């Protein structure tokens, strides 16, 4: 038996994936760091296999990207005031976890 993901959720995720995020502006505003942006770009809108390889080669880095580490907040927290960035990151993380 398999349960398809609900259409409401998939269409919301599709909308968010298609939204342009002004990443460079977010870096200039201090919402995210250069280092975080390069990790995001390395897995955003690339083939699934390549994405998987990139993440698996840098698990500590990707954990720190999303949930923080070494007393530094991850993007989910540091971007808290930017709803568009948080939404995009949540969809990206779900895609990485679920292989979407």
């Amino acid at each position: 038996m398999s349960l398809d993901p609900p259409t409401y959720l998939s269409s919301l995720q599709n909308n968010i994936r298609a939204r342009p995020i002004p990443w460079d502006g977010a870096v200039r505003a201090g919402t995210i760091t250069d280092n975080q942006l390069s990790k995001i770009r390395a897995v955003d809108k690339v083939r699934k296999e390549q994405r998987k390889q990139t993440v698996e080669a840098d698990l500590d880095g990707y954990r720190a990207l999303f949930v923080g580490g070494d007393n530094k907040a991850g993007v989910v927290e540091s971007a808290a005031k930017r709803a568009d960035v948080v939404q995009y990151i949540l969809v990206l993380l779900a895609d990485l976890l679920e292989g979407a």
Partner: protein
Amino acid sequence: MDSNRYYVGIPALSAAISEHPDPFKPFLPLLAHSNNSEDPIPLLTSNVVTSLIAASPDLSTKQASALPKLFSYLATLTKVSDGGLQDIAVLEYSTLLRSRKAREAFWEQRKETVGPLTDILRAAAGVGSNGDSATLWSGASARSSEGSLGGGVGLQLLYHVLLVLWQLSFEGAAIGESFDE
């Protein structure tokens, strides 16, 4: 059931995140981000937290401690009038309840979690919450394009609610006796 959904992803990332000393800290406040049930942030957060919890068959203490807030948020979704949102919540329940610890935690919060599910069943059967029976299977119009029963409850939602109750029944010894409440 649903076994592919979480394993075609990157299990090593789930594992790495769960090794973080407090992996749910960034997410839990977002579940209470607003009282608007259509706010995408808590909805997307619940999806991520559900994935992180369901990725391992045995719940760690950290995972178990994230459940009450997640269940509380999902319970609010099961009470809205939008069948699409209700269905997301019930499917996330179903994913979480594969674990025994999660079924026990769900039952601990049964007033919050199970109550609205029985309301959905009552609505589907055309029975008011005060127990007066209206016409069974009255086929009211539904928002969804799929088939629906009384009270506009979609068949898919009804099926998923029954699935969740069936999963709970695995804790029969602990739960069965008080199910009648």
